[in-house]
């Protein structure tokens, strides 16, 4: 089955670049340019994973993620956040939300794809973690291209 990914990104060039990458990796891609459309497209297409920019017109990515995950049909859909912002605390906020990943822009496409693949292939821990709203592990990977940090899994 082909996995469906919703890309929520207001910059149309980045949205296109992400769509090109994801389609080349064999995923179906839907893009939403703002928070409002993101919610309605999520409901309509029921994506398997959502890739979210943090600063967008109409609301920030964290709010969109919470809103979507509150929908019954979208319960447990994993979210990966992308941001060009260096405001401190964003990574921790993503972690608290149970994000499947957090990437700084410019992102490293290979690391991003690896996180997406791992997230989609991970078995849902429904029996083990009844209280966890979504998968609770994070691949902590800075997208700083010169970063020497390897991708690693943080509990």
């Amino acid at each position, binding site marked *: 089955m082909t996995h469906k990914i919703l890309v929520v990104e207001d910059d149309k060039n980045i949205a296109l670049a992400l769509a090109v990458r994801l389609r080349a990796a064999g995923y179906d891609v839907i893009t939403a340019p703002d928070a409002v459309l993101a919610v309605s497209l999520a409901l309509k297409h029921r994506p398997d994973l959502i890739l979210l920019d943090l600063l967008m017109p109409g609301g920030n990515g964290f709010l969109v993620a919470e809103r979507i995950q509150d929908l019954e049909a979208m319960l447990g859909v994993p979210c990966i956040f992308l941001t060009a912002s260096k405001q401190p605390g964003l990574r921790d906020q993503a972690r608290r939300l149970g994000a499947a990943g957090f990437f700084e822009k410019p992102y490293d496409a290979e690391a991003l794809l690896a996180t997406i693949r791992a997230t989609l292939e991970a078995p849902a821990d429904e029996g083990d973690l009844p209280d966890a709203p979504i998968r609770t592990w994070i691949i902590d990977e*800075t997208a700083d291209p010169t970063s020497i940090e390897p991708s690693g899994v943080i509990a």
Partner: protein
Amino acid sequence: MKKEEVVHTSMDYIPQRPGFPYSLGQAMAQVAETVQFHAELTEQRRQLEQTNQELHRRNAELQSFYHILSHELKTPLTAAREFVSIVLDGLAGTLSETQREYLGLVKDSCDQITLGLDDLLDATRVDTGKLSIAPRPTSMARVVSQAVAAMDLTARGKGVRLQQVMASQLPDALIDERRIAQVLVNLLSNALKFTPAGGEITVRVGDDPQRPADIRVSVSDTGRGIPPAELGRIFDQLYQVRRDDATVQGGLGLGLYISQEVIKLHGGEIWVESTVEKGSTFSFTVPQYRACDPSVHVSQE
């Protein structure tokens, strides 16, 4: 207003010391002057406080502006870098070797802009005291090996030998891995910038002979060295701008300024020793992690 009691005698007419009133008129004039002086002082103080507040506000505004600037520049930069990567990865057709090489240079240039923007933000954080670290027990040997591996390709490209010497059985360090990696990459890039082809860069990691509770890391190069007059200033912000010889070396010149702050936040020291025409050694210390030390608070994930 009139705090002092002035007693007039015949001595009043003989000036005793400069500034001392010797007549009622002069005494009154001096009181008036003092009152005026106090009023001026109060006004100046009020103005200074106002200016100080204004400067604080501007500083906060400037920092927000730098955040917005960085965000707004990184957004198109991300698209540029990613489309270049897409083409490089063969998703838009086959490339010739030359095309591949040139696009690789575009990608590197994008990465340099990103580093510059990050340095700019970090430098404003240092200025406003907002740079912070989250230390955790970490293997220094691993952090150093990764930094060396990350720079190895660039070093090879320049014909510079990059090697590391590690003490065996090194204890863990209590560091913010991301920030210490930033310091290492910064010191290594500087060393690479000033070391000619055929030169050598050595990274050493071991105990600190002066401070047994610390781990010392040093980066030595066989570059052109730093003149003694410059040594005291190279950790200054804007050192690059204030240089006398005004030769552009590339970079914003903020790296050492940020590195110094990062090491200070770790409670360590950073310093440089250099001989002109022989090379330079930059060293820093960071604390060892001691599991039994009750004063050490390790934040848990």
